[in-house]
C-alpha cells in the first residue's frame, strides 16, 4: 500500500467516524469538560479584564468629550440664568415699588453711565421718550428715592440724584413725625436739609419725601439723619445732614415713576 493511499484511507476513515458520531449526535460527558474548566476560566477572566480595560479607556475618552460638551452647555445655561435672574430681580423690584411707593411705574431702566465729576451726581438711563419717559419723573429703587429725570432724549434719560447740588426734595419725618423741610444735595454722598426750629428732629430719624414741590410721591424713603448741626444765634432753621437711603454708587436698575 502506497503512502498516498494509506493517507487517503486514514482521512476517509476519520471522516467516516465523524459522520457516524455526528449522525448519532454523540455528546461528550460534561464531567470531561470540568477538567479543562479552570483553564478556560483563566482565558475568560483575562479576556473580560482586557475588554473592560479597553471599554474603560473608551468610556473615559467619551466621558471627557461629554464632559466638555456639558461644560459648554452649562456655561450657556449659567449665562442665561444670570440674565433671567436679573430680569426676575427687576420685576420683583417693580412689584415692590408699585406696591409700596407708587402704583404708576413707567418701567425699569438700567444705569448705563454716571457723571464722572466729583461735584455732580448724575446718572444716565437706557430709557427715553420712546419709552414714555418725561422730564421730572421720579426715579426710585425699593430702598428709596434716587432722584428725578432732568433731561431726556429718544433713548436715554438723565437723572439728577439726591446728592447732586442741583437736587432739591421736600422731606418729612417718617411715620407722621411732622415737620417739613427741603433737602439739597451735598456732593459726594449726602444731603443737607433745613427744618424749622420747632421740629423735634434728631440723629437716626428717617426722612421720607413730602408733598412739597409736587414732584415726588409722598412717603418714599430719602435717608436717615446722620448729624444735627448746632443752631447759631441767628439761625431760624435747624440744619441736618442726611445720609441717603440708597447707595447711588452701586445702583444698577431703577424704576421710573409717573410724575405727579
Amino acid at each position, binding site marked *: 500500500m502506497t*503512502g498516498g493511499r*494509506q*493517507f487517503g484511507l*486514514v*482521512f476517509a476513515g*476519520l*471522516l467516516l*467516524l*465523524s*459522520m*457516524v*458520531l*455526528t*449522525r448519532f*449526535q*454523540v*455528546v*461528550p460527558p*460534561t464531567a*470531561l*469538560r470540568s477538567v*479543562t474548566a479552570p*483553564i*478556560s*476560566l*483563566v*482565558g*475568560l477572566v*483575562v*479576556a*473580560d479584564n*482586557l*475588554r473592560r480595560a479597553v471599554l474603560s479607556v473608551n468610556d473615559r475618552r467619551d466621558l471627557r468629550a461629554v464632559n466638555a460638551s456639558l461644560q459648554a452647555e452649562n456655561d450657556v445655561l449659567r449665562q442665561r440664568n444670570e440674565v433671567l435672574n436679573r430680569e426676575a430681580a427687576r420685576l420683583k423690584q417693580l412689584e415692590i415699588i408699585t406696591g409700596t411707593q407708587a402704583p404708576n411705574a413707567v418701567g425699569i431702566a438700567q444705569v448705563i453711565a454716571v457723571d464722572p465729576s466729583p461735584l455732580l451726581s448724575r446718572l444716565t438711563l437706557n430709557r427715553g421718550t420712546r419709552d414714555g419717559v418725561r422730564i421730572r419723573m421720579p426715579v426710585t429703587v425699593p430702598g428709596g428715592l434716587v432722584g428725578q429725570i432732568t433731561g431726556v432724549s429718544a433713548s436715554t434719560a438723565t437723572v439728577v440724584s439726591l446728592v447732586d447740588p442741583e437736587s432739591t426734595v421736600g422731606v418729612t419725618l417718617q411715620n407722621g413725625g411732622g415737620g417739613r423741610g427741603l433737602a439739597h444735595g451735598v456732593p459726594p454722598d449726602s444731603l443737607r436739609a433745613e427744618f424749622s426750629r420747632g421740629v423735634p428732629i434728631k440723629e437716626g430719624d428717617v426722612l421720607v419725601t413730602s408733598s412739597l414741590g409736587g414732584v415726588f410721591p409722598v412717603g418714599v424713603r430719602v435717608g436717615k439723619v446722620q448729624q444735627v448741626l448746632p443752631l447759631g444765634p441767628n439761625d431760624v432753621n435747624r440744619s441736618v445732614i442726611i445720609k441717603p437711603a440708597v447707595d447711588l454708587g452701586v445702583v444698577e436698575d431703577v424704576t421710573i415713576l409717573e410724575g405727579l
Partner: protein
Amino acid sequence: MSGRVRLGGDGRSQRGLGGGGLDRTRLNGGSSFPPRGPARVFRAVVYAALLIAAQGALSRLADAWGVAAPDLFLLTAVALAWRLPPAQALLAAYGVGLGQDLLGGGVLGLHAAGLAGAALWVVIFRRSISDSGPLQNVVAVTGAVIGQWLTFGVLAYWLKSDLISVRLLAGTVPVLLLGTLLLSPLWDWAVRWGLGPRPGPQENLV
C-alpha cells in the same frame, strides 16, 4: 527571500534532499518534536493549557466585538501537519479536533473532521511549498481553512443540515481567516516552544 513558494516544484530541487533533511531517522518516521521525556510531556501539557486559555480568551473578546475568533486549534493542526508524517498528522489533528469538540460541548466529530481536513490540505500543500516565510504561512493557513470548511460542508451535506450557509461563509470565514492569519506568526512562537521547530518541507512526508 525566505518566503518562496514553489507550487508544482520538483521535490529534488528543494531543501531536504541531499542536505540532511531526509536522513534515516526521518525516513523511519521520526518527527521534529523535542526528544522524548518529561520535558516533552511538560511542554505539550503547557501548550495544551495555553491553547485552551488563549482560545477561550480570543473567543470571549471576539464575541464581545461580534466577529469570529481566530482559530488556534486550526493553527495547532497546521503545526502538527508540518511536523508529523501525513497519516500521523491526520490522526493528531483529528485528536485536537476532538478536544475542541469536547471543550465546546457540542457533537463529537464535527471539529475533529474539520481539523483533519485542514491537516489534509496542509500536507498536500506541504509537498509543493518551501519551509518558511510569511507567504508560505499564508498559503498553509488559507489552505487549512479551506480544507476545514470543505469538510464541514461535507458533514453538513451528510447530516442534511443547514449548518453551512452562504451568509455564514461570506460573513464568518473571511474574518476567521484574516484573524487566524494575523495571529499565526505570534502563535508560532508558542508552537515552536511546545511542539518544536518546523522541519523542512520534505521531511516526514514518507
